[in-house]
């Protein structure tokens, strides 16, 4: 397979001026990640700062209703409220070992921005977060959190003023800042080696969950389900189970409102291959190759592309990629709140929504593991507005 590719997907389609920092990062991954010192420092941060390992929660109420066992991997209980911190602590520590003094990051809803700002503060690094101006307006609480954590937040006014434009702005900034600065990419996408690097740091989710399932139930789950935007929580969960042929794996994309012609974020289900943000992957685009705006009630899934490894797992048929709609996610959100006392992020609600809406497709008595990638406090305003509360 060509270097940096997953099957046909991946690569690094970037300006030549970004090749040296990407190659530097690739070397650092080889030299620094396996070292004893790095592993120890990262393990300590994950355990004693971020709160790993996260619990595996059995849902008795929902399991009884559904007729199969529902298990949740509780990434919502991590520091800053989502799986994003696994990646930002890893990348920030790596950057520090590389001699970088600053981090830049993009953010959509603000979760990755907050997690990067926290990691930077903890490790004594400077941090600048690029955020689409429209996102910065609708997620102002996260902008305030980032600023409290010492980060500079740059509102990006160009293009559609959302996540994809924030990534463009961060890539542009990295051209000028590469000597001193690491680009802490937020999802398992972008130019090689970011898809590998982010999966590496998120794979702790799947490793833990697999061991916990074996310990608690004596067997592997029959199904593993996660929401897919860029795809970092999903790849972190899936990577441990891909070699287990008996485990059926389902990624859930955001289908938007579900009305004909609605905006959505289902790049694998409804997109075509193309090049964006340094990678060849499945994309929402028009006939001329212009990137189309995406849409979802979940800001964290609202992205017109997807990580290249997911595009490959879909093409290879190893993972089934399905769609959940806004209203299904809202139903799942409420159900989990009321039946299990857990307030899930709207991203994670999509994974759960697929399971609830397609319960008949799951074997009775089987074990279903869902990645609960984040908590839903951040989504209160959106949910209340959507439900007319």
């Amino acid at each position: 397979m060509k270097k940096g590719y997953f099957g046909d997907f991946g690569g690094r389609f970037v300006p030549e001026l970004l090749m040296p920092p990407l190659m530097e990062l690739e070397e650092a991954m080889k030299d620094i990640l396996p070292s004893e010192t790095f592993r120890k420092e990262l393990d300590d941060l994950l355990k004693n700062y971020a709160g790993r390992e996260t619990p595996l929660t059995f849902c008795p109420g929902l399991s009884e209703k559904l007729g199969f066992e529902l298990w949740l991997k509780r990434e919502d209980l991590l520091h800053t409220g989502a799986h994003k911190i696994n990646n930002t602590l890893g990348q920030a520590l790596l950057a520090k070992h590389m001699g970088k003094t600053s981090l830049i990051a993009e953010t959509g809803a603000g979760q990755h921005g907050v997690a990067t700002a926290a990691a930077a503060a903890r490790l004594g690094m400077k941090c600048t977060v690029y955020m689409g101006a429209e996102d910065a307006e609708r997620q102002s609480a996260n902008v305030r959190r980032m600023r409290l954590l010492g980060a500079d937040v740059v509102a990006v006014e160009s293009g559609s003023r959302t996540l994809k434009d924030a990534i463009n702005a961060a890539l542009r900034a990295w051209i000028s800042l590469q000597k001193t600065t690491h680009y802490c990419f937020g999802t398992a996408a972008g130019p090689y080696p970011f898809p590998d690097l982010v999966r590496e740091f998120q794979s702790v989710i799947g490793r833990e969950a697999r061991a916990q399932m074996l310990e608690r139930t004596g067997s592997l789950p029959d199904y593993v389900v996660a929401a897919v935007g860029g795809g970092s929580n999903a790849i972190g969960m899936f990577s441990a189970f891909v070699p287990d042929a008996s485990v059926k794996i389902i990624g859930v994309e955001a289908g938007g409102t579900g009305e004909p012609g609605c905006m959505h974020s289902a790049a694998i289900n409804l997109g075509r291959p193309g090049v964006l943000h340094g990678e060849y992957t499945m994309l929402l685009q028009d006939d001329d190759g212009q990137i189309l705006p995406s849409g979802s009630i979940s800001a964290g899934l609202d992205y017109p592309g997807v990580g290249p490894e997911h595009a490959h797992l879909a093409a290879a048929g190893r993972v089934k990629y399905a769609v959940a709609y806004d209203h299904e996610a809202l139903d799942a959100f409420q159900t989990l709140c009321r039946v299990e006392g857990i307030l899930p992020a709207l991203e994670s609600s999509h994974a759960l929504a697929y399971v609830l809406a397609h319960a008949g497709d799951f074997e009775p008595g089987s074990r279903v593991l869902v990645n609960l990638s984040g908590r839903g406090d951040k989504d209160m305003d959106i949910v209340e507005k959507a439900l007319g509360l």
Partner: protein
Amino acid sequence: MHILEKKIRDAAAEGRTALIPFVTAGYPTPETFWNVVTELDAAGSDVIEIGVPFSDPVADGPVVEAASVKALENGVTLHGIIEGLRDRRGAFRAGLVLMGYMNPFLQYGLEKLARDAQEVGVHGLIVPDLPYDEAADMRAALSAHGLALIPLVGPNTSEERMKLYADVSDAYVYVVSVMGTTGERKSLPPEVTDVLSRARRVFSLPVALGFGLRAPGQLAMLPDDLRPDAAVFGSALLRHIAEGKAPADFIRAWRA
């Protein structure tokens, strides 16, 4: 010798720096764009780079990005640009280059693009998000039709990486003067002399300098042996046009 190299060498033979204006297709309006190209050509441009708009131009600064956004709003497409060129085939003295991002080219189809571009009189492509490592398919498609894939190198491009490009490139090498995106700067950064001398050592092709240029005086600061063979200007020209000034006046200032 590739025709684009010849255009630049011919300027050198006249004792001057070759001039390579960049204009985003459809700028300032789809109706007036081709007049701009005609005027730039008549005023003595040696090569004209036509920008193919893209929704996510990561190598561009605010001026070119804004021009790209406006062009897309005005319905400019790669198909339309090719048809516009077809209508004017043979009308231009200058060499013609399409500059744009990978995805619109990829969706058009690389083989079809190479064939159509050659048919309508295009001589080469510049693709800012297509580094050496990903360029094999594009280069093969273009070279089958005599089109050049013009390499971009910059202040952080090592001699080793320049050699990779030098071994497979023709036409000219585009040297990016700054560690940044497109857009005019007051002065060239001091490290520009390093990248120019590296490029001179590695490439036998003419050297075009771009990103950050706005006035001929900027080149006068460079030592004689490092003066580029060609100067590329985009943002400064777009601003000049936006101010309602004649494109030809911009070229004349550089030819004076």
